[in-house]
């Protein structure tokens, strides 16, 4: 089966600044990927290149096996996209926007759209520009899901939503994924939501994929902070750890498998003190973003 989304050696620079540097990513049909990265890491750029909205400086990208830059009408009918900025078509009312955009899809699912509108209490008769960011965001998601897409790209779609609606959106996506096996790339800074929805985490840093790991295995990791004189730390072999970072001289933060932590700590030389910061997936994943 052809990959849902694929990036091969994708590169992009803005004004001499390399934002994406030979990035490779493959998302199989039915996979749900949570995309993470610091602000400015290139998440939106990558998603736009993937969707063919921005030309890459190098490399190739495709959706459903078709090159992003020249998607056929059939391929476009299978794509759902929720951009970062929610206020689209601000001059139209919600209903007019849905009728207008829906007309571009031969099989726009009005019944499903209306059920989402009902459940998420969306204003349809008010100009979109007057709606709160949360309402605009809901409309944007409904517009995207109403087309019943197979490949969904959501670029920080829930930042403006209240917790209840956020959960409702995630649940809806989970159900769609279970029922129809849609492939999702979900860019967000809210790791908790990604844990609920995604079966894989991808962290973008330095223009490349810094981490590409299943949600389950990320849940088995712990963060360890070790401190010792820098001279001593330089002699320690950290190669067995999943990730090593030097926040400052005399300190290392490590990521290790929870089950192997005791063994790993026991092998640290005398004079190195270690503390396990067993908080949550977010603090572990943030190690790759720094």
């Amino acid at each position, binding site marked *: 089966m052809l990959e849902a989304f694929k990036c091969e050696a994708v590169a992009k620079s803005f004004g001499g600044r390399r934002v994406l540097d030979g990035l490779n990513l493959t998302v199989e049909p039915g996979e749900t990927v949570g995309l993470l990265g610091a602000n400015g890491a290139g998440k939106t750029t990558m998603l736009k290149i993937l969707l063919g909205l921005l030309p890459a400086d190098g490399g190739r990208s495709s959706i459903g096996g078709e090159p992003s830059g020249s998607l056929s009408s059939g391929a476009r009918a299978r794509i759902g996209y929720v951009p970062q900025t929610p206020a689209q078509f601000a001059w139209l009312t919600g209903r007019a926007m849905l009728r*207008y955009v829906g007309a571009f899809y031969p099989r726009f699912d009005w019944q499903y759209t209306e059920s989402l509108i009902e459940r998420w209490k969306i204003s349809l*008769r008010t100009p979109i520009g007057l709606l709160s960011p949360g309402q605009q965001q809901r409309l944007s998601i409904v517009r995207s899901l109403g087309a019943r897409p197979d490949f969904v790209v959501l670029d920080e779609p829930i930042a403006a939503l209240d917790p209840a609606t956020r959960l409702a959106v995630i649940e809806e996506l989970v159900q769609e994924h279970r029922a129809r096996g849609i492939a999702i790339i979900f860019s967000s800074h809210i790791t908790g939501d990604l844990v609920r929805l995604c079966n894989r985490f991808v962290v973008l840093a330095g223009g490349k994929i810094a981490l590409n790991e299943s949600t389950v295995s990320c849940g088995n990791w712990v963060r360890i902070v070790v401190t010792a004189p820098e001279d001593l730390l330089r002699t320690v072999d950290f190669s067995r750890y999943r990730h090593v970072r030097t926040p400052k001289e005399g300190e290392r933060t490590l990521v290790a498998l929870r089950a192997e932590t005791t063994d790993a700590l026991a092998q640290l030389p005398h004079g190195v003190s270690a503390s396990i910061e067993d908080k949550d997936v977010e603090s572990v994943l943030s190690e790759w973003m720094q």
Partner: protein
Amino acid sequence: MDAVNRHWQVLRALVLARPFVLVCLALFYVVAGFLLLMLDADKKISVILIMCAIPACGVFAIATQRVIQYTDAGSSLGLPRQRESMRVGQIWVLCVFVGIPAGIAAALGGNLSYIVLLLVPAASGVLLAIYARWVFFVWITFAVTTRGTYSFGAWMPGLGNPWIRAILVCLSVAVLYWWLGLANRIARRSAPALVIADARHESTTASIGQALGADPKQYELYEKAYDRGITAVVSGITDRGITKRALQVGLAMPGRTNWRFVGVMIAISLVALLFFHLKNPNPAQPTAYLGFTLLTAVWLFGQLNVVTQAWKARANEEALLVLTPRWPAPDKLKSLFLLIILERQGGTWAAWILVSLFATVLRWAAVEEIFISVVIMIAASSCATGALMLALSRKVFKEVSLLTIVALLCGAVGTGVFLVGDDAIAHGQLFGLSLILAPIAVGALSFSFRPLQFPARIINKQ
């Protein structure tokens, strides 16, 4: 000290934050300084006034533009004390660029009634920033149609009359008083609009009308008409392609030509031409008809600028539309843009042709003027169309594009060369015509062979 720092920061942001402005100001004041050293005492005051009047006009124009920009941005973000900061900055601009030179001139024993004339360039700068093209074109129009009677130079001897000085100063004070309240007015206009957070206000038509501050019955009528409009637009979106109207709705571009407005403009133009014809019936002199043509050329630019602005402001919506299955292929999309470009110019050309016909038949304009006007209109259309086509077919959209500037210059220089004709330059008319048509030719070539930039990719060079 904090207050002084803050005031300095605002003044810097309003006027001095650009190296180009600083260099220009420095040049002016250095030259003025040299002149002051070299001239006799009785001429020093005139030099101070003239050398400070010119930068004052520029500085006030820049400051006005920035007050509008910063207040608009600050108010929509809800920044505190934005208006007060702007007002303080404006007072500083007034003190530094009008107060200090006026003080120096007064200390040198200048006539107070002349010194206060420094307020006039300051007020002119404000008006220039807000009504730039109208001030410029009205001035040019009057200068052309009255053979320099109302040009700037013609005003200078009039300043000897104390009544004229008094009127000018009073008008300037009024403009500057209005200017000091500008930030307040913009802040009120740009305050965050009504935001509706849930769907409860839509329970009935009455409640939604109330929430939106509209008469419920009127709102219901409007909503029905609006729905009918959307139904018509949606019916134009099929597997075979989309209509021009469907594209215009998606990009929030104005639709068909407003013929009623065109009719009103024609009527106003004819009345104005009649007025000037009665004032100056001698057909040997240039008439107001040339001024009308210049204004129509500006209007034509404005019509196509609407397309550019809509296209570059709706990049997000364009990104969504381009991913839909019924979105037309690039070639078809180009045809739609071409239709829109032609349609946008229709009203302007119709108005100009009709007024020109009247002016010719009624002998309000000489044949030579009609000829000049035809050249001006063709050049304007060529430049505006060429610039838009170039913008649409570039890789990215740049706010300041060298190619567009060259296209516009070609049109302007070409018009001049064509009108000067073969007498002054060998093959002048042919060369001029080539320059006039160059923008549209280059634009059309680029538009035909290069991919359409859709969605728009904007690069802002601040």
